[in-house]
């Protein structure tokens, strides 16, 4: 799904993804402070690399999120 991937904005901080992992909108567009705050009590929902909705499993002591393209992350 490369058509979903836009060029990374030069101002993007190192390590951040292209897409907000909470709302799925472009990270570079800004306005994600509330998303970042909410993420303290939520697992990610969108893959930061490709914007796909991930399969997220929450268990009492952690969570895992899988993107079919970019694999699994855990927290």
């Amino acid at each position, binding site marked *: 799904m490369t058509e979903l991937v836009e060029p990374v904005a030069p101002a993007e901080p190192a390590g951040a993804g292209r897409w907000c992992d909470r709302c799925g909108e472009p990270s570079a567009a800004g306005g994600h402070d509330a998303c970042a705050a909410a993420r303290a009590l939520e697992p990610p*929902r969108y893959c930061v690399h490709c914007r796909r909705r991930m399969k*997220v*499993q929450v*268990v*009492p002591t952690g*969570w895992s999120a899988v993107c079919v393209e970019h694999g699994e992350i855990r927290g």
Partner: protein
Amino acid sequence: MPEILDQARTQVLENGVGLDEAGVLAVLNLPDEDVPAALQLAHEVRMRWCGPEVEVEGIVSLKTGGCPEDCHFCSQSGLFTSPVRSVWLDIPALVEAAKQTAATGATEFCIVAAVRGPDARLMKQMREGVAAIRAEVDIQVAASLGMLSQEQVDELVEMGVHRYNHNLETCRSYFPNVVTTHSWEERWETLRMVRESGMEVCCGGILGLGETVEQRAEFAAQLADLDPHEVPLNFLNPRPGTPLADRPVVEGKDALRAIAAFRLAMPRTILRYAGGRELTLGDLGTRDGLLGGINAVIVGNYLTTLGRPATADLALLEDLKMPVKALSATL
């Protein structure tokens, strides 16, 4: 001392008789300065009729998302544009979650599925999952699988599920504003069958769905009427994509008023802090609630959102000198 608290001191604390709807409403309408006294009394009631133990529970989602129902607060409904995707937990991961829950000292492990009611596939997963947990982990197994048939109730009893959760969510008069795909009465019918089966009834709801204070009192009275073994109290955590996404969260003081009022309505029930407390009350509120009528917590994460680390709650309980209820006390 406000009159309602004087009345509650005799009626609830001394005689163990819960407040009725009018009494609950009076507590919910107490001015801010009287809230500490209400919490103090609710705490005394809890200590007198339940004791100092706190029941600790972990919950896990066996089947997440894709639910055909339309509960307006729920990110797991397949009818809204929620980012929550449908996913099943496999049996090894379920058993591992039960082990990790038991390792925190929890005595309860509740298996939850986002469904209207169980189908054959879910019942098969439950049979295998519950058997595997009971073979490998020292923990009581509870379940929350939506509306049940009598056969399914009987099957859960056979599996060894000791408690069944089915929340009424809100009072009868407000329910149609929150759910349109099934009725409050249908939920009540499942609760009736569960009660008759001998399983413990766990039934609570969510505050902050847009109900009035009067409807909150109505809800407490209806729960008291049901007389559940356990009442989980949630505060709305507005979820993106749901019809209630833009609702404000419950004010901390109102949440504490509700905790005191629900305890004064139900002196003997297990009143559990469930979802949304972190958002509504923060760290301090968790302490205030435990000193205001709450005697059970869900530790760790919820079904689709995260909670405080279990260690933070357990440290708080130690600080408050409230022992975690032991497994032997629940058998």
